[in-house]
C-alpha cells in the first residue's frame, strides 16, 4: 500500500515524540515514584528494597490512572515523598529505614482488595498499616484487617462508626469521619444564620456521589434535619459524575438555601460548572474535604471563586515541604511537579504518611527499634499522642492539630476548618469548628452495636 511507508515512518517517530513530550512535562507523567527516583538521581538509602530484612514495610494503595487519577496522584506523591524524606533526612524512623511499594488500584474496590492481598505479607514483618484511600475499599478491607492483624488508617473517610475502637479495633479514622464533616458543615450553617434554630424552614440539598462514600453523611444530615426542622433534598449523582445536569435542574427548581457537595474527582468540577449553568451562587455551595482541592476548582476557573469546603488540611508549605524540596526535588528525586508540593491533596497524602510514621515511632517505644508487625503498629496508633511540640518538630506547624487517641476513641479531635477558593489558591475562611459529639456519639454507638451484632463481635472490646 502506498501509505505503508508513511505509516512506518510515523510509527518510528512515536518514540521521538514521547521523548520530546517527556522533556516538556517533566516527571508529571511518572507512573510510580520509584521509577522517577531511580532514573533521576542517586536514591541510595532513600528507596529501600522491600526485601531488606531491616526495613519497615509500608504498603501504598494509590491510583495514578483512571477517572480519579487527577486526585489520586497528588495524594500518592505526598504520601511517598514524606516516607522518602524520612529515609533521606532522618535515616529512617529511629534508624529503621522505610521500604514501600505502590500498587495501582484505579480507585476500584476489587483492585484495592487485590493490592491488599498482594502487599499484606511483604517486607520482613508484613504490612505495617494500610491506608486504603477509598471508602468502598475500606468497607471491604475492614472485614479482612482483624484476620490479618493489620491496622487501617482512614483519614477522613471510611465507616463513620469505625471511630468506636471497642468494635473496630483495627480502624482509625483519624482527623474526622464523614459524620464529623457533615456536622461541622451544619454547625457552620447554623453559625452564619445566627444559630441552629434559625435553620428551621430552610432547604439544604445534598448532591452526592452515588456510592458508599457519598451516602455516608445521610444519616447524620437526616438526624440534624429532624432536630432543626430544615428540609434535606438528596440528589444522587452516578459515578463518575460527568453527567449531573438533572441534579442541578432540580436545584434550580427547588432553590435550596445551601448545597452540600459530597463528590470526588471529576464530579466536583462538573458540579461547579453546572451550578454556574443554573446560576446557583457558588458561595452557597459547601464541599466535603474530598471536594476541596485544586483539581476540583481549576477546571471551573473563575466560576469556582467563593466556593468553600470543609478541610482537614489546606494548601501551603511548612518546614517539611521545604525539606522535601531540598532533600528530594533539588536532588532530582521528586515524584511529581515541584509546583504540586504543598497543594491540598499533596498535603493530605503527606499528613497520612506523617501519621503512619508517628504511629510506627510510638510503637517502637514499646516494641523496640526494629521492623514491627501490623499488630504492634496498631498499638502505636492507638497510643498516638502528637502534641503541638511534636508537630513543630515534624515541621508541620499550622498544618496539623494534636492527636490523642485511646482504645475507645479512634478519631481524636472532632473539628475542622473551612477553606475558600479565591481563584488562585485555597485560604481558610473559618477557625476550627467542632462537631457536636452529643449528636454524633449516640449514632456511632448505635451503628457500631448493630455492626458488632451482625458480625458476632463483642459490643465493646475496650471494656474486656
Amino acid at each position, binding site marked *: 500500500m502506498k501509505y505503508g511507508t508513511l505509516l512506518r515512518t510515523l510509527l518510528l517517530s512515536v518514540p521521538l515524540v514521547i521523548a520530546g513530550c517527556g522533556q516538556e*512535562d517533566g516527571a508529571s507523567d511518572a507512573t510510580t515514584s520509584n521509577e522517577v527516583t531511580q532514573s533521576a538521581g542517586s536514591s541510595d538509602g532513600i528507596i529501600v528494597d522491600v526485601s531488606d530484612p531491616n526495613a519497615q514495610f509500608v504498603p501504598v494503595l494509590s491510583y495514578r490512572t483512571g477517572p480519579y487519577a487527577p486526585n489520586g496522584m497528588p495524594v500518592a506523591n505526598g504520601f511517598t515523598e514524606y516516607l522518602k524524606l524520612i529515609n533521606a533526612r532522618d535515616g529512617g524512623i529511629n534508624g529503621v529505614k522505610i521500604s514501600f511499594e505502590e500498587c495501582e488500584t484505579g480507585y476500584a474496590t476489587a483492585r484495592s482488595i487485590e493490592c491488599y492481598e498482594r502487599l499484606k505479607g511483604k517486607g520482613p514483618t508484613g504490612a505495617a498499616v494500610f491506608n486504603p484511600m477509598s471508602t468502598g475499599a475500606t468497607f471491604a478491607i475492614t472485614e479482612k484487617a482483624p484476620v490479618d492483624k493489620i491496622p487501617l488508617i482512614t483519614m477522613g473517610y471510611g465507616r463513620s462508626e469505625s471511630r468506636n475502637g471497642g468494635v473496630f479495633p483495627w480502624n482509625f479514622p483519624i482527623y474526622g469521619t464523614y459524620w464529623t464533616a457533615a456536622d461541622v458543615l451544619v454547625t457552620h450553617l447554623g453559625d452564619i444564620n445566627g444559630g441552629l434554630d434559625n435553620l428551621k424552614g430552610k432547604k439544604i440539598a445534598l448532591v452526592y456521589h452515588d456510592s458508599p462514600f457519598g451516602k455516608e453523611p445521610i444519616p447524620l444530615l437526616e438526624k440534624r434535619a429532624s432536630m432543626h426542622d430544615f428540609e434535606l433534598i438528596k440528589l444522587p449523582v452516578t459515578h463518575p459524575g460527568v453527567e449531573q445536569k438533572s441534579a442541578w435542574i432540580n436545584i434550580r427548581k427547588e432553590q435550596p438555601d445551601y448545597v452540600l457537595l459530597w463528590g470526588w474527582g471529576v464530579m466536583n*468540577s462538573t458540579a461547579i460548572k453546572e451550578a454556574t449553568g443554573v446560576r446557583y451562587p457558588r458561595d452557597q455551595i459547601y464541599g466535603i474535604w474530598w471536594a476541596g482541592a485544586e483539581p476540583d476548582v481549576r477546571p471551573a476557573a473563575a466560576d469556582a471563586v467563593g466556593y468553600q469546603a470543609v478541610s482537614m488540611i489546606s494548601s501551603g508549605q511548612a518546614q517539611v515541604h521545604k525539606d522535601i524540596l531540598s532533600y528530594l526535588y533539588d536532588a532530582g528525586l521528586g515524584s511529581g511537579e515541584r509546583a504540586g508540593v504543598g497543594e491540598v491533596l499533596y498535603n493530605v497524602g503527606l499528613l497520612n504518611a506523617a501519621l503512619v510514621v508517628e504511629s510506627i515511632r510510638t510503637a517502637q517505644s514499646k516494641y523496640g527499634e526494629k521492623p514491627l508487625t501490623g499488630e504492634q503498629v496498631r498499638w502505636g496508633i492507638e497510643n498516638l499522642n502528637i502534641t503541638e511540640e511534636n508537630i513543630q518538630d515534624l515541621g508541620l506547624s499550622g498544618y496539623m492539630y494534636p492527636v490523642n487517641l485511646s482504645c475507645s476513641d479512634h478519631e481524636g479531635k472532632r473539628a475542622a476548618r473551612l477553606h475558600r477558593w479565591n481563584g488562585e489558591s485555597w485560604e481558610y475562611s473559618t477557625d476550627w469548628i467542632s462537631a457536636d459529639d452529643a449528636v454524633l456519639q449516640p449514632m456511632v454507638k448505635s451503628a457500631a452495636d448493630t455492626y458488632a451484632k451482625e458480625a458476632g463481635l463483642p459490643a465493646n472490646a475496650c471494656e474486656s
Partner: protein
Amino acid sequence: MGFFVEVLLSGLMAGVLYSLVALGFVLIFKASGVFNFAQGAMVLFAALTFVRLLDILKDSFAPITLSLIITIAMMVMLAMAIERLVLRPLVNQPGISLFMATLGIAYFLDGFGQTLWGSDIYTLDIGIPKGSIFILESVFDGGVLVAKEDLVATVIAGLLVVTLAIFFQKTRIGRALRAVADDHQAAQSIGIPLNYIWVIVWTVAGLVALVAGVIWGSKLGVQFSLSLIALKALPVLILGGFESVLGAVIGGLIIGAGEKLSEIYIGPYVGGGIEYWFAYMLALGFLMFRPQGLFGEVHIDRV
C-alpha cells in the same frame, strides 16, 4: 410548563452529544461490521493530544489551528496503524474476533494516551462562551434557562451529525463504506479497496472522537472520564440500531430527553439517581417492539 420545557431542552441538548459519540460507533460498524469498543478511548486520546499540544504550542502564532492539524494527523496515523496492525490480519475473521481486537485497542489507547500526555486534569478553553441565558421569556413565565456552552456544543455536534449523514447517504465513498460492511469479500471483488476504506472510516471516527472530546473536554476538563462518556452511547445504539446514522441521531435525542425527564419526574419517587439505568431500560423497552432498533436493518437469512 416552562420547567418541563427546560428539562426537555437540556435532555435534547445532552442527546445531541450522545448522538455524536454514538455516530463514531455507527461509522465503524457500518464499514466493518465491528462494534468498536475503543471509541471512548479514542475520544480521550484525541482530546488529550489536542489539549497537551495546545499547551506546548501556546506561544506559537496559531496554537489552536496548529494543535488541531497535528491532532488530526495523529488520528490519521492511528487509523492507519489500526488498519495495518489489527484489522488487516483479521480480514474475514468472525465479528467477535474483531470486537475483541477493539477491546485491546481501547486498553492500549487508554494507557498510551496517559503515558504520553499525563493523567492529570487539563483545562481546555477554545473560546466557547460561558454562563447561561434565558430564552422563550415571552412564552413561559420566567423563561427557560439554557447554558450557552450547551447551546454552542449542540450546534457544533448537530452540524457534524448532518455532515456525516450526508457523507454516508449521498457520496460515493459513503456507498462504498456500506458495501464493505455488507460483505468484505464481495466488496473487494467489485474493486472496492477494503484497506483504504477502513483507514477512511477509522479516520472519520477519530475526527468524530476529536470533536466529541473537545466539546466534552471544554465542559469537564480533559481527563480520563472522557473515555467513559462512550458508555452513554450504548443505549443510543441499542435504541437507534448499530447501522443507522439517522438512528443514532434520533436515538440520542430520545435517550437524552428520556433520561432527564425520568430523573426529574420519576426519580424522586424511587430515591433518585435513575437516569443512568433508565436510559438502558428505555432502549430495552423499544427493543421489545423493534429488535433491530428503531432504524436498524432487518436481516433475513435463507436457511
